């Protein structure tokens, strides 16, 4: 078991003919991910790495029963592409590009909700179920099949956490990157709820950071969880009010500070890790 993606997922790559699209398609394939098709408007009929390319997502669904999509496109085309996937019946969309306009992403959320589609990102490194499927840009080397789920807003932090879990023998069920953009398709709440239901996942590491309100909003979900949640928050020493690369990491009001996030996690009963090395130390206390 795993969440959202496994070896049976039938994946398409939107923007498969672009540089990044092609490069990571090759990597994802090498990992064993079942990539059935790709899209690139105007290039229907071509092949990339022996994968058929179509003009539209509807063709990928009609011809290959595709259910999952990874988007590698410039930010300004993302809204269009994701909504195309949603309307074509894709059930899970991973949005790799960053800097998607806020109003575009709010529109995506609305359409996704209408159709019950799950969207990850934008600005996510993707999602990996070690040993089964790797969607996005995550480096294989950090991940090993195992029993802890991870969810983070940052790609690099996902790698460091997974690396730590892999090297200490816990391994991961699924590692989820929510993405660093200010408005996200999925939030900690959504993913934590899925991990709670996943039998193989014995504990969850969630890594938040300053800016936005997603960590604070997760409080009610964590409170209800039966599995241990280890929380980590980046930006304790960040200067306020300056853009730190992630558009979301702007400290706006009281909700977005590292302090308010730490407080929410602590009150919800999460176990706080300061550095990655704290994670295995906390896990040791649980019999997992």
């Amino acid at each position, binding site marked *: 078991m795993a969440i959202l993606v496994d070896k049976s997922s039938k994946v398409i790559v939107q923007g498969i003919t672009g540089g990044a699209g092609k490069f990571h398609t090759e990597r994802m394939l090498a990992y064993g991910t079942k990539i059935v098709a790709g899209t690139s408007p105007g290039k229907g009929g071509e092949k990339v790495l022996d994968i058929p390319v179509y003009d539209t997502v509807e063709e990928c669904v009609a011809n290959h029963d595709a259910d999952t999509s990874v988007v590698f496109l410039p930010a300004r085309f993302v809204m269009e592409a994701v909504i195309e996937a949603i309307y074509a019946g894709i059930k899970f969309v991973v949005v790799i590009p960053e800097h998607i306009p806020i109003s575009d992403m*709010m529109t995506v959320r609305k359409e996704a909700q209408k159709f019950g589609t799950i969207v990850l990102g934008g600005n996510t490194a993707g999602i990996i179920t070690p040993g089964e499927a790797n969607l996005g840009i995550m*480096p294989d080397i950090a991940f090993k099949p195992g029993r802890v789920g991870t969810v983070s807003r940052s790609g*690099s932090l996902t790698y460091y956490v997974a690396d*730590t879990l892999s090297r200490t023998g816990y391994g991961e069920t699924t590692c989820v990157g929510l993405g660093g953009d200010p408005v996200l398709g999925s939030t900690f709440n959504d993913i934590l709820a899925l991990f709670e239901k996943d039998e193989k996942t014995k504990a969850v590491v969630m890594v938040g950071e300053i800016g936005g309100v997603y960590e604070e909003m997760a409080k009610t979900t964590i409170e209800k969880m039966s599995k241990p949640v280890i929380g980590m928050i980046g930006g304790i020493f960040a200067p306020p009010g300056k*853009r730190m690369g992630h558009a979301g990491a702007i400290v706006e009001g009281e909700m977005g500070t590292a302090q308010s996030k730490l407080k929410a996690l602590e009150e919800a009963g999460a176990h706080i890790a*300061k550095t990655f090395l704290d994670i295995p130390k906390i896990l040791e206390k649980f019999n997992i």
Partner: protein
Amino acid sequence: MRLYEYEAKQLFSQFNIPITSGQVAETKEQAKAFAEKTKKPVVLKAQILSGGRGKAGGVKFADTPLEAGTRAEELLTTSIKGFPVNKILMDEKLDIEKELYLGITLDRVNYKIVVLACSEGGVEIEEVARRNPHLIKKISLDVDQRFFPFWGMSLARHLGAKGENLKKLSQIVVSLFNLFKQYDAKLVEINPLFLTKDGRYIAGDARMSLDDDALFRHPELAEMGIEIRHEEGEMTEREKLARGWEIPYLDLDGDIGMFPGGAGFGIMGNDFIHYFGGKPANFMDSGGGPSPERLARMLILLDENPKVKAIFGARFGGISRCDDFAKGVVIFLKEHGLTKPMVLRMTGNMWQEGVRIFQESKKEHPEIFKNIEIHGIETPIEEIAQRAVELAKQR
């Protein structure tokens, strides 16, 4: 990114939101001239990219042209909240009946657009929200919901408007909403919104923050001189240089040059350095899939910063590949040379290729590698951070 008051007011007037016919002054003489032309008491407002300007002494009044010149000079030679004042906005002083508040922002908890009206303006809205929440009326809208004018009417009524003024004020609310949507704003505020003694509504101040990621839809802003900038304050010279290279970069006040891959670990690595007793000199993000040339430039920003004593490098290749990373470091070492000690950890996508590039280059030019320590996945990142702090302390 935030706009200056005078920039936001330019946009206000495009949308027929009433403003006074003020003028920007950059010198004492311009300030004097404006006051002479106006023939009335004037108000002088420092143009800075920060709130709380009034409390910090950034707003002054003058009854005569002479006084206006003096006040202007005071403002133009000072810093408000740490920001030097290069421009002041001059306005005629109005006879105020009442100060109100109007604002539109994004509710990121519920994914809505929120329109707010408060019958107590000219003060901090958060303050009123705490003290007298009933003074604030909110309307929440879906992102694709059109704004019906009757909501404007409802908010205008909340602000006490009646008769013809009710129509005028609801039109202002509608216009403010249109402005918010038109420019992909994250925040638009009129605080205070003046009701003058002669019954006119006039935007006393104007605050706008735009979604940087949607700026590509608004090339006309650049034509107005509105360019990308921080949410608060102007950029340092090094930040401007970095922006020219399209590198997200921020000066901090420590001495460890931060060369992290990915914004997430950029923020977390900053904390780690603090945990181990150090202080970072900067924040930096490489952006998705940086080229070797860009990586070399990132190192130039660090090595040339006189405050930097040591460099902390971390690369977990995802969309950015270790081969490109190693190439970039090598370009930098060859063409620029590393003068500060650097400790580096590299793993992730294409790490084998990255290691090979380093090894080959070191074989050819061992001398350029003398200040650099390179680690792989076997060393925890915490040890690397600790080592960087040590290196900085040794200098």
